[in-house]
């Protein structure tokens, strides 16, 4: 339970201000990358790939691109903030304050969530400018928020468990990026062979992309309600993991 509300607010603000002070590294790259994806995959390949589920290829890939951007930013914020604090020796000064593990965890998670959410909303505007018409705006906003929260929690866990930037990069390059790409950003999983379809269904990113695809375009490879239930449960699981790891003090208290 949160008791030190001022401390909680202060650390949450710090985490949000931290990424805004370096907006050229935390906001701009996601936008540039998404525009490049839209150009390369959407514009250049659109004539060669026919519609998927009755939606043009350019439109089809937009929710996936948005989700990939949200996931990358949310994870990066908490993971890099935690690891940076460890390496620069600022973490011990935070750990000795009267903030509980829950307050610490949630403050970090809020920082990452806001970064993922801000990036997501900016990409959403780009998608709208590219011609996307959103079917269900409330669900769209909710999905962007909850996915930011989930992966911000995951980032906090990864940051706490990592000892170096190399370890962090390893997880991002060999776990998160493949999960994102194999979650159906650029294709419908129905195009995959039987085994590929089965593998996709155990990939959490698949449900995040498909729930957003349904909320924005009205098409999906997975039932919308079950995808939403999955991402909410996934969020609770990752939040618990992050808070419990913080409580354990593993790799931060000795």
């Amino acid at each position: 339970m949160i008791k030190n509300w001022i401390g909680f607010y202060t650390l949450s603000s710090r985490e949000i201000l931290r990424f805004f002070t370096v907006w050229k590294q935390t906001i701009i790259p996601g936008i540039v990358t998404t525009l490049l994806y839209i150009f390369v995959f959407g514009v250049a390949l659109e004539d060669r790939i026919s519609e998927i589920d009755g939606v043009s290829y350019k439109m089809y890939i937009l929710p996936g691109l948005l989700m990939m951007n949200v996931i990358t930013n949310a994870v990066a914020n908490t993971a890099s903030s935690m690891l940076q604090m460890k390496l620069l020796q600022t973490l011990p000064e935070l750990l000795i304050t009267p903030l509980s593990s829950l307050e610490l965890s949630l403050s970090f998670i809020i920082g990452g969530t806001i970064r993922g959410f801000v990036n997501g909303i900016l990409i959403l505007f780009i998608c709208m400018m590219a011609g996307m018409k959103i079917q269900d705006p409330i669900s769209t906003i909710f999905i962007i928020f909850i996915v930011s929260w989930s992966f911000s929690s995951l980032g906090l866990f990864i940051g706490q468990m990592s000892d170096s930037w190399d370890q962090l990069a390893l997880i991002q390059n060999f776990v998160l990026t493949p999960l994102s790409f194999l979650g159906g950003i650029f294709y419908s999983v129905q195009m995959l062979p039987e085994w590929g379809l089965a593998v996709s269904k155990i990939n959490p990113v698949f449900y995040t992309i498909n729930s957003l695809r349904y909320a924005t375009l009205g098409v999906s490879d997975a039932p919308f309600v079950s995808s939403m239930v999955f991402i909410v449960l996934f969020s609770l699981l990752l939040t618990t993991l992050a808070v419990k790891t913080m409580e354990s003090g593993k790799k931060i208290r000795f």
Partner: protein
Amino acid sequence: MNEIAIYINNLHKKYDEIVYAVQGIDLSIRKGEFYGLLGPNGAGKSTTINAITSLVKPTEGNIKVFDRDIVSDFRYTRSKIGISPQEISNDWFFPVEQLLYFQAGFYGITRKDAKERIDFILNKVGLYDHKDKKMRQLSGGMKRRLQIARALAHDPDILILDEPTAGVDVALRHDLWNFLQELHKEGKTILLTTHYIDEAELLCERVGIINSGKLVAEDTVSNLKELTNKSKLEDVFLELTGRELND
């Protein structure tokens, strides 16, 4: 004056199930006391300090701050302590003044309530004119002063200083000594670790000497000199630790 500010009972800390950094330390520091914890490198000073602040989990033993347990009553005990760590931390993102506001905020103090105190501390440590600078723009001595300012941001009753004058020039060291003496006169309990024995001799009312994780002596500076028949605390230290300084 008899109230106990820090009470350590039978503190043991074993790292990696093999090495004992601290082996059965018992320590009581009175409220308002200026206490020096001396010892060679690796003797267990920082482990003891980190155990008080809960950065280190004791393998055995318990610690109380103003008679409250540091684990079950962590909000109270941590709010009573300010620490200036041995390692200088580097927060690249924010200017000096903002860092102090954050520090006060973590302890539950609003920006409005913290303003007067932060201005006072910035003046005291000579950083007021540098309050808009980021840490990378500060000299080593300024960074050290900022560490102390951060420790004081929430006006703690207990100040723990882990080698606060390491890497600081002579003039600044004397300034810091005067400042610490002022804080002591105000009634703050100060726990100091230092490799400068003359610093401990000048400032501390009582000194504990720690060696290989054990408290080998504890008394006033004059009593320690008398007991060991030495004229300088540095000689007492060498006699009791049996080692060269700064090995």
